[in-house]
């Protein structure tokens, strides 16, 4: 009972602390002076450098998903529906969520470790002493870059995933890419794409904010840095599912499903 109370208190403290940390983004991070150079550098690191990993996993996911779905559809005689099923699954759910999870694994851990090591080696203090707001320079830029880059990566990932699916379809039947795409978009509407696209901004924000939070409050030397990186990935991954759940409920309430 005592352990449960301690864990509950810890959970509530962490939630409050993370909320305050995130709220600072809107009070401090969005005010001038803007760290445009650092933001662009972070967009390059967080976005461009994540692209090969996202592309590879998206391609494999599209290919494997097609190969796994096809036998079941053949049994029911609806093999022709394979492209549209894959299209809906990728655009509405699998693309955004899997891309966000891969992104969380790469970016939340790297931000957590980077800021954590800066914290324990007093580099963040040095920045503050030199008259730079470390929250604005380090945190706001990374959170903003993650928020902006994940939607872009998701769209690219969706496209590459569909290409993987096309290869999967062509392993059994000969279909032109134009026909495949036409079939995929036959029943897909803007209402399928838009809510999925919007939630990726929230996924990106959560990944950036949690990675920064865990790194910024890292302690206990090098072990603390490792713990921060690990905790950042776990918490960001859980948060992606929580946001996804909320997003589904909201789109359902709005009648977009």
């Amino acid at each position: 009972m005592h352990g449960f109370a301690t864990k509950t208190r810890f959970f509530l403290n962490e939630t409050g602390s993370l909320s305050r940390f995130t709220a600072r983004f809107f009070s401090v991070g969005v005010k001038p002076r803007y760290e445009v150079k650092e933001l662009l550098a972070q967009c390059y690191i967080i976005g461009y450098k994540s692209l090969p990993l996202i592309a590879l996993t998206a391609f494999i996911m599209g290919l494997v998903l097609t190969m796994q779905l096809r036998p079941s559809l053949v049994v029911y005689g609806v093999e022709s529906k394979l492209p549209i099923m894959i299209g809906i699954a990728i655009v509405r759910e699998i693309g955004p969520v899997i891309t966000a999870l891969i992104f969380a694994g790469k970016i939340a851990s790297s931000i957590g470790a980077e800021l954590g090591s800066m914290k324990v080696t007093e580099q963040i203090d040095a920045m503050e002493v030199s008259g730079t707001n470390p929250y604005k320079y380090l945190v706001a830029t990374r959170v903003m870059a993650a928020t902006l880059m994940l939607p872009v990566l998701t769209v690219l990932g969706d496209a590459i995933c569909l290409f993987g699916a096309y290869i999967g379809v062509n392993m059994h039947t000969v279909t032109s890419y134009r026909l495949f795409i036409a079939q995929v978009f036959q029943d897909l509407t803007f209402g399928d794409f838009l809510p999925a696209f919007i939630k990726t901004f929230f996924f990106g924000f959560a990944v950036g904010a949690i990675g920064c939070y865990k790194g910024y409050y890292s302690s206990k030397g090098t072990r603390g840095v490792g713990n921060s990186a690990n905790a950042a990935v776990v918490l960001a991954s859980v948060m992606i599912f929580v946001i996804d759940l909320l997003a589904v409920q909201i789109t359902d309430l709005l009648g977009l499903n």
Partner: protein
Amino acid sequence: MKAADITEDQEDLNHGEADVRPVIVIEHLYKKFGDLVVLDDFNLVVKREENVVVLGKSGSGKSVLIKCIIGLLKPDKGNILVFDQNIPLLGHDDLDRVRTKVGFLFQGNALYDSMTVRENLEFPLRRHWIDFSQQKVDELVMEALNNVGLPHTVDMMPAELSGGMLKRVALARTLILKPEIILYDEPTTGLDPVTAREIDNLIIRLQKKYHTTSIIISHDMNCVKNTADRVVLLSGGKCYAQGTYPDFEASADENIKQFFE
């Protein structure tokens, strides 16, 4: 000589040199972490161009003291007047303005390890003097590196430098804004005696060149001997004693004697 005697002597010295304005005045400083009281009614006055060494055992609150002075930590009670500005009461922008006049040399150097030496030195310049041309920035960077005898390291990464070189580069970064006060957090810790002596000499030479006021945190007695105009012993969270190095060396007080054993 007893601790109290040393303190009284120093007070006489302060009163005798009334024309020398204090740049740092610390009054009734109190800071605790949880139940651990680190600073308990600590008082100190530092005059312009004075080198004050704060001596104390590990964990006695020396680093906490200078972090309170620079505003990295907020004291629970007390005033810290730097150039007549009360640091604990300053807002972020005002604190930044004071910080342009106060340099801080970190114990672990705190160089940005993802940046070259040039970028490390440019960083504070670019934050405060946005309008400087690249040529002017380059001149200031090279001047700072020449001051510490390391112009050839300008395009190297911190990971490529030795401990002594890192300390010098960190000192160059501290000096680049031409601060009027420099706070040194254990500048010779972890260095071999020869390099430590070189750092001591560098501190003295730069102090004379730029007429800076310094607070040096140390428990390295060679550093204390080489750099101190005045020594302050921090013990039990209070200013236990203060005086010159010879005063301390001659003291019969057990708390002071143990640093010379």
